[in-house]
């Protein structure tokens, strides 16, 4: 799979085909009757499933816009009461906790993305362009790294952070997530497909590798940088297990850890609970609406799974 992302994005960048409309090129295909019926049938079945899939989110949104008093009674009253109120949202946004969570999530995600993208692309550049002793070894170590499940390392990582006195700091969330090995492969595959003419010309002019990486390779790699940044961002933003155990200071909690405490602390304020879930999800929904193509392509191309 890792090999396909580079090829695919390369093909796309060359042809200028938008990935957002993947099937557009097969648009005018069928004219025969049975194919048409089949297509309409497919559409109906898919619509039913899509509607089914939307129910939980819509239910949470509806509850969050209903008063706590109504939602405490049960599903029927929530469904029937259409006096919509933003009471839960204003209570949460005035309460303050959510702002701490947003800050923690935003800071840890942005810094992790910056470090991961910079370091992974640098390593990938060396693997793609430079011939050196030990290159194969590094390559195989990276392959090995892909197979390590970071979640399972939570106990030793916790002990390590305790040892260097980083528990209860944002760095405890950031540093362990920087070595995302898959990012190295995605960058390497992309670099492998870039034309080398400019770089060779620059070498002859006497440019060093760092200059070439910074001024030639990286500017050509904007699509893969965007895709990798967003996929990493989503992964770090959503990580529960690491911040859950390395942060105990409520002021430092990220969104997932904060949301994990909500059920206990809000008790019967069901509308508030659903509103906090919506507020926790909102930044990612907005991100999706803006970067739909990069997210879908990044996920499909890297096979990165939580």
């Amino acid at each position, binding site marked *: *799979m890792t*090999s396909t992302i580079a090829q695919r994005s390369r093909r796309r960048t060359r042809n200028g085909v938008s990935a957002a409309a993947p*099937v*557009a090129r*097969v648009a005018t295909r*069928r004219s025969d009757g049975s194919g048409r019926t*089949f297509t309409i049938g*497919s*559409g109906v*079945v*898919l619509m039913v499933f*899509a509607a089914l*899939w939307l129910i*939980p989110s819509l239910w949470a949104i509806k509850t969050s816009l209903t008063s706590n008093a109504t939602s*405490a*009674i*049960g*599903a029927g009253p929530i469904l029937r009461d259409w006096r919509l109120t933003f009471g839960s949202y204003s209570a949460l946004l005035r309460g303050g906790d959510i702002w701490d969570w947003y800050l923690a999530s935003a800071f840890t995600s942005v810094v992790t993305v910056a470090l991961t993208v*910079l*370091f*992974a692309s640098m*390593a990938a550049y*060396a693997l793609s362009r*430079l011939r*050196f002793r030990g290159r194969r070894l*590094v390559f195989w*170590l990276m392959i090995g*790294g892909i*197979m390590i*499940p970071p979640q399972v*390392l*939570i*106990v*030793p990582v*916790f002990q390590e952070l305790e040892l260097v006195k980083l528990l209860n700091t944002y760095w405890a969330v950031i540093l362990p997530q*920087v*070595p995302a090995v898959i990012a190295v492969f995605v960058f390497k595959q992309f670099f492998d497909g870039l034309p080398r003419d400019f770089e060779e010309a620059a070498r002859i002019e006497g440019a*060093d*590798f*760092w*200059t070439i990486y*910074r001024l030639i390779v990286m500017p050509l790699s904007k699509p893969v940088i965007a895709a990798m940044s967003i996929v990493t961002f989503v992964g770090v933003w*959503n990580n*529960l297990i690491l911040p859950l155990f390395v942060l105990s200071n409520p002021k430092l909690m990220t969104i*997932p850890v904060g*949301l*994990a405490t909500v059920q206990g602390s809000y008790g019967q304020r*069901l509308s508030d*609970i659903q509103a906090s879930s919506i507020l*926790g*999800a909102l930044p*990612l*929904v907005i991100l*999706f609406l803006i970067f739909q193509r990069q997210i*879908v392509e990044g*996920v*499909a*191309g890297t*096979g990165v*799974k939580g």
Partner: protein
Amino acid sequence: MTAQTLASPWSMAARPTAGRRRQGAARPAWLFIAPFGIFYLLFLVWPVIYMIITSFFNTTLVKNGFGSFAGFANYQEMLTKPEFWSGLWHTIQFTLYTVPPLVILAFIFAILANRVQHGQWFFRLAFFVPFILPSAAIALIWSFIYTPTSGLWNAFQTWLGNSNPSPVLGTPNLAMIGVAITTVWWTIGFNFVLYLAALQDIPRELYEAASVDGATPWQQIRFITIPLLSRTTTLVLLLQIIASLKIFDQVYLMTAGGPGISTQVLLGLVTNTAFTDYRTGAASAASVLLFFLILIIAVTRQVIETIQQRRAALI
């Protein structure tokens, strides 16, 4: 910034004559790899080694150092402990409940979506958006749906004629099914997108040729789509198994392993042993066992992928 200050050492090796190029690349190469390499060693390699070492000691969180040497006692304890085996069984149970629907439904959704061609954004919104949301938000939504007596699920059951439905997350036999349904809803978008991407790579000429030969849509799916997607299916299947073995979030958030220990999974056992009982040595032994279980699947995936790539290269 740092970029500027770093620039100078690199330039030393930057002007190789043709013959020295090979040698000249070694220093910059390692400098390029070093930042990532340091993080890789510190947060992937070292924890693995440390985990293996502490699994042989009575290490605890309350005292510094490794503690006394335990030999294989931690492993013996885990392998004879009912909680370990029930944790393993619940992990496998979760895998068995989630993998088939996640693969088959995603496959069907992708084929249908590829066929329909209109409103792709809508299907992606419906199926894919949940996947990028935090597990904690998902757990709040679904715990609320499963609320006993007043929740939406309960209302649905009552509407179907079941006047006294059991609370999903409060019943030992149902709790894992509740978690599994949540997970299918949450993560199907990942497989959906992988399948959809693979479907675009099937050349349309194949369908046109089949159509000219009078193949029905079903025959086209059966004899073109399914065989050509087999590579993706293998990938999806193995990724899905690995992800399911690492299950932690949903169980921690929705049932905390309960009722009783009826949904406790291996990673939950690991974190409880370490952070509730403070017995990091024993927790490391359990981690090592889970680690190797996942590693076996991951290596299998890598091998299969390599073979498939070689085969694809030959064609």
